[in-house]
């Protein structure tokens, strides 16, 4: 690169665009099946392993990287230019990057966006993420599509041992049976009052919302901030609690409703959460589960989960509301799903994926509880499913009256 701005953000008068990190360190992505991809490092030097998944969203790389649900996963983004708009403090979905690695085709040297404060390269280094660019990511997608999700290893550095990389990939355990929710969950309870973002005003301030009418306890299995913001926008007074909080402690907050968050890994081993959920169900507390939260709700009601071939990761997935026929374009990020055939009579399927027919939503017939497999909070992705949050409010209202 002919630019002499190495390693430094070079702010021009307009402060609208900056030079990012120059690229020169080699990197390798090894898959458990032995496939090797050679590219360049665009993050921290070092080695990292995880289950390799691909995400087809065209926007929202910062939100994806900071989504706790990507814990122990190496995420490959199918759109070739990643980093065009840099990063900014507003678009993180959690305090850290949980993905163990990033795989892309190209990280542009210059990023441009009026909100950008830091280039993706710097961001990755600061957040200590190993990342590789310059590889045929479409070939990678094809392999994952055909063979299913598998473990991988990124090695970034001047000296790389390919065989060792493959071995490291093979040694990496899959996500089946992994209880990762506890790993990413908050250590202790906290309250949340920030509302949603708008172009004009940024994030809504707590004070801007006149009356906090609904007390909600949100179980943090790896919660994305935008979920909490959308609840706050709907006048919810939110207490976020750790994943393993017993029902009794949660009930001590006298919640109008309990929210079960998204999160990484397999729902099976999260027995502690199932116990709590069963208690809430029994007490007719309004319940809303998203993604992992939805799976846990289903398991607590007697359904079974399964590991998907390569999962759903993207922002273009059509989901149909079975009752109305309405189609929503949704954000998706899950490698496990609930087997619709296993639903007990107390659960009813409410949504299905139009891509593969898999179960996308459930509701309890005799309790004010429902779950959604996709991400109605979007961020990134379309906002089509956001009315589900309103449904949760309605359930709380009905329960209160």
């Amino acid at each position, binding site marked *: *690169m*002919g630019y002499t701005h190495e390693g430094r953000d070079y702010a*021009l*008068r*307009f402060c*609208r*665009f900056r030079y990012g990190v120059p690229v020169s360190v080699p990197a390798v992505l090894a898959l458990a099946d032995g496939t090797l*991809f050679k590219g360049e490092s665009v993050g921290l030097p070092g080695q990292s392993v995880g289950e390799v998944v*691909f995400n*087809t*969203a*065209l*926007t*929202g790389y910062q*939100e994806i990287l900071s989504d706790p649900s990507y814990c122990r996963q190496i995420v490959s983004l*199918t*759109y*070739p*230019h990643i980093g*065009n*708009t840099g990063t900014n403090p*507003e*678009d993180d979905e959690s305090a850290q990057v949980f993905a163990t690695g990033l795989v892309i*085709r*190209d990280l*542009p*040297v*210059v*990023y*441009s*966006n*009026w*909100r950008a404060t830091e280039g993706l390269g710097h961001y990755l280094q600061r957040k200590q993420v190993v990342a590789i660019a310059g*590889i*045929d*990511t*479409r*070939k990678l*997608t*094809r392999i994952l*599509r055909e063979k299913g999700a598998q473990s991988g290893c990124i090695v970034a550095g001047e000296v790389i041992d390919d065989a060792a990389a493959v071995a490291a990939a093979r040694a990496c355990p899959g996500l089946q049976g992994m209880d990762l929710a506890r790993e990413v969950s908050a250590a202790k309870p906290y309250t949340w009052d920030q509302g949603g*973002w708008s*172009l004009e005003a940024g994030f809504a301030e707590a004070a801007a919302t006149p009356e906090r009418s609904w007390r909600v306890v949100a179980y943090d299995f790896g919660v994305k901030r935008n979920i909490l913001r959308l609840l706050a926008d709907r006048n919810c007074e939110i207490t976020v609690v750790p994943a393993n909080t017993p029902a009794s402690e949660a009930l001590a907050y006298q919640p109008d409703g309990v929210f079960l968050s998204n999160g990484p890994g397999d729902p099976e081993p999260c027995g502690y959460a199932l116990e709590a959920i069963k208690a809430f169900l029994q007490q007719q507390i309004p319940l809303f589960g998203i993604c992992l939260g939805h799976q846990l709700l289903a398991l607590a009601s007697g359904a079974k989960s399964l590991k998907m071939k390569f999962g759903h990761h*993207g*922002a*273009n*997935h*059509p989901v*149909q509301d079975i009752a109305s*026929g*309405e*189609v929503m*374009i949704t954000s998706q990020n899950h490698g496990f799903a609930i087997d619709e055939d296993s639903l007990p009579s107390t659960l009813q399927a409410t949504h299905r994926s*139009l*891509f593969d027919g898999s179960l996308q939503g459930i509701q309890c017939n005799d309790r004010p509880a429902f779950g959604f497999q996709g991400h109605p909070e*979007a*961020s990134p*992705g*379309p*906002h089509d499913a956001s009315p589900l949050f309103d449904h949760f409010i309605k359930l709380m209202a009905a329960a209160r009256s």
Partner: protein
Amino acid sequence: MPKRNDIKSILIIGAGPIIIGQACEFDYSGVQACKALREEGYRIILANSNPATIMTDPGMADATYIEPLHWRTLAKIIERECPDALLPTMGGQTALNCALDLHREGVLEKFGVELIGASRDAIDKAEDRERFREAMKHIGLETPRSVVAHSMEEANQLQGTIGFPVIIRPSFTMGGTGGGIAYNREEFIDICEQGLAASPTCEVLLEESVLGWKEFEMEVVRDRKDNCIIICAIENFDPMGVHTGDSITVAPAQTLTDREYQIMRNASLAVLREIGVETGGSNVQFGINPDDGRMVIIEMNPRVSRSSALASKATGFPIAWVAAKLAVGYTLDELGNNITGGVTPASFEPSIDYVVTKIPRFNFEKFPQATARLGTQMKSVGEVMAMGRTFQESLQKALRGLETGINGLSTMFEDGEIDAAEVRQQLQQPGPERIRYLADGFRYGMDMEELYTLSHIDPWFLHQVGDLINEEQALAEASLDGLKPATMWRLKRKGFGDCRLARLLGSSETAVREWRLQYGIKPVFKRVDSCAAEFPATTAYLYSTYEEECEAAADNRKKIMVLGGGPNRIGQGIEFDYCCVQAVLALREEGYETIMVNCNPETVSTDYDTADRLYFEPLTLENVLQIVACEKPAGVIVHYGGQTPLGLARALKAEGVPIIGTSPDAIDLAEDRERFQQLVMELGLRQPENRTARNPESAVQLAEEVGYPLVVRPSYVLGGRAMEIVHDEEGLHRYIHHAVSVSNDSPVLLDHFLDDAIEVDVDAVCDGEMVVIGGIMEHIEQAGVHSGDSACSLPPCSLDAEVQDRIREQTRKLARGLEVVGLMNIQFAVQGEDIYVLEVNPRASRTVPFVSKASGVSLARVAALCMAGKSLTEQGITHERVPEYFSVKEAVLPFIKFSSVDLILGPEMKSTGEVMGVGRSFGEAFAKAQWAAGDALPRKGRAFLSVRRRDRALCVEVGRELVRLGFELVATRGTARAIEQAGIECRVVNKVKEGRPHIVDMLKNDEITLIVNTTEGKQAILDSYTIRRTALQRGVTYSTTMAGARAMMLALGEPVRDRINRLQDLHRELAS
């Protein structure tokens, strides 16, 4: 919801002739609609005046009408065919306006025709600037501050509230016609007058300027259950201020975060809902303030558009096909996504894993008087699209695909220093070459900040261009032999073509190609699948890129590859796409696997299911050879895509590519002046006397030998540019001393000009032995007017049978002499009894679709099968079919889009499109062709005549006929005298320079309904220029040739008849 069973037949209106702002994309959408609805069992009635379209092929619809797109004609069609519904969203602004007219005139109500796809109110709400603004306000979306004016006074009054610069946008027009940006009062008045005249509702919007903002476009589809999806977000490389059609555009959007993207997505859906687009595709345009993200809605179109064609090709999601299905009741979830073989539904949002760049193609060189500056009125005539895994790769592929002679970011200063002042000016006031000036800015060393301040092009794009220049400069000291393979790999991944690298490395394209192949550096082909490889694609829609894995999966079937025509330009347009598509369809039916190669996103040929396999690639030697190497076709057809593939024929043959049909050598023979002269002599035919002058001195001598008048032109220029007709030595002097330079390297060609000769076009097909004439067309305008700009009649309207037979005989001789296998086109000139051969083109010609529609024989299909080895006899095509009815083709000219351009026709082609009129007499057919071209011939009023001296005798005849038809005559002094001397009443009117009131005053006062104006000589042309220009702006019928005027008299002599003809009936009549 399944499809509707209460409707059985549907009328689809096409877009009419190709004009700037409305091109092949509506043939593409129309064809998709026909396919989508016919397979559902609906009876399709199609109306379109453009014979060059694939949609007007008799097999596309159940009833096809090549008739003027006017509500009166459409009313007749509706009366006869009784359609249950009208789908007006496939034929651009033309069709929408027709639908509104039909509604307003009560035709739809009278015959119980339901509008499907868009309601009258939705169309009105989207197109009416004031209602649209109100609607946006209603849903809380910002639009640029604006006011609506219906008159000049009102506009003047309101302008103050907006200030300068102000953007003027006429209502209900397309491609920004009549609009512009005014920086001062004078410009404001000019543009408003023009805009008020252009708007059918006499309404203009005066809008706050958001020049320099970022511009985006969203392609949206909605179904009747309110399911909405975004097909594609497009970001403009050029900032606001350059019409989207003239902008370089990129998909997907590059510089939006998810938050901003979702705001735009939500706004797009809200717009569709508010406007009330119940089903179908629409686009919504946005402006974004680069400093704070403030978003404004610019406009929306409640129909498929050029952008939706682009979005369809860019993503593999067929918007028009889906929109047609939705219009008859389906919902998105009920439709399959064909590109994945239907395993996924159409109700999703495509995700792509490559970058698409579109670059418009301009033809400013054809209109030297027009200022080559881009603004809110679209001026490009075509576009090229390219795909790559990176923006740089797609940009450089697109630049090569443009075929403007550049091989990448070529400098604008080939022979010297970069003129920084020129670069700055060109970036501030963008013209067609702005991206090359931008590259030169980087070469000069300007920094991003300065370039941004000048151009307002987003820094992300700026850097991408700057990085390419960086790479180029790094090669300054390098040589091919010293290059590392890794460097070559990087350069190829950034999209550098072999030809560009050869230039930068001081090598040859062949050497670069061989060098990299030796190191195994070659592209792979990736599939366009709408889903970023999440699902396997069943469709072979491919593009090249430098990656690891190839997905072409070529098989061993017997394949024939057809090379398309590339971007539309004047002289090479939809006609060639028609031919390519016909070839593909014929060969597919014959059992061949067909491969299409093209890079024009507007076309039917680049629909992924036209051919078995589609390679969306630039038509360059490098790209074609790569595809050939991958596919190994049994035959390649280079004759159907116009000059583009023809230019590759020799080089392809040299590389061992199996070209079928007429040999490249025969093509060369026909184009090589000396070899061709030889052939003509051997065959005992005549050519106009001609010589080649290699210095100014010999030119005079040679001119004497040939005899005046002369057609003079430089030998190296194609397409009639710089061609002139000179009548004497003085004229020749002026030409060789002022217009061109004559030298050994650039000789000037002198041909005897056949004054008052009738030009004749013949299309024929030959299988190597038998020759079948497709049709003989007599030109209306005399020789000297480019054949593409001349109207013509099939069968001939004045040539006698004996001359026609001699023409047939000569055609046969030439076909055999050139050993033609496939199509050929010959231009003859007939002067009295003498027949001269002007030109032979052993390839598809611009007239092939017209001849096919007129004669009922699809020449392009027949010829394609000949090339594949099936003889004419085997095909059962052994005789020429001469219709008993007349078909007239008329050219459509783009003068209205280029202010200060003269309307005079000459040897340089200027038309962008064509229409066809059919009648039982020549006059009827001609009248309909004129009407279809937008000129409803006046039946009464006052005619103005002003002709050059030599035309006076003819003018007297025309005057007499006009008086007989009931016209009043006015004429300039000389012309008036000649008419009065013949005893015809005629009033004298002042020329412009003779004092007021003059003819232009009369025109402006609407006192003239028809103009015949011929002129020659620089001064006379200059003097009469305002007359023609004013006539154009006032929509007054005019003819600038006597031949045209005479044809007009024949048309006016016909009683007005509203006879309409179903193409299928005409062809049946011919076959019987």
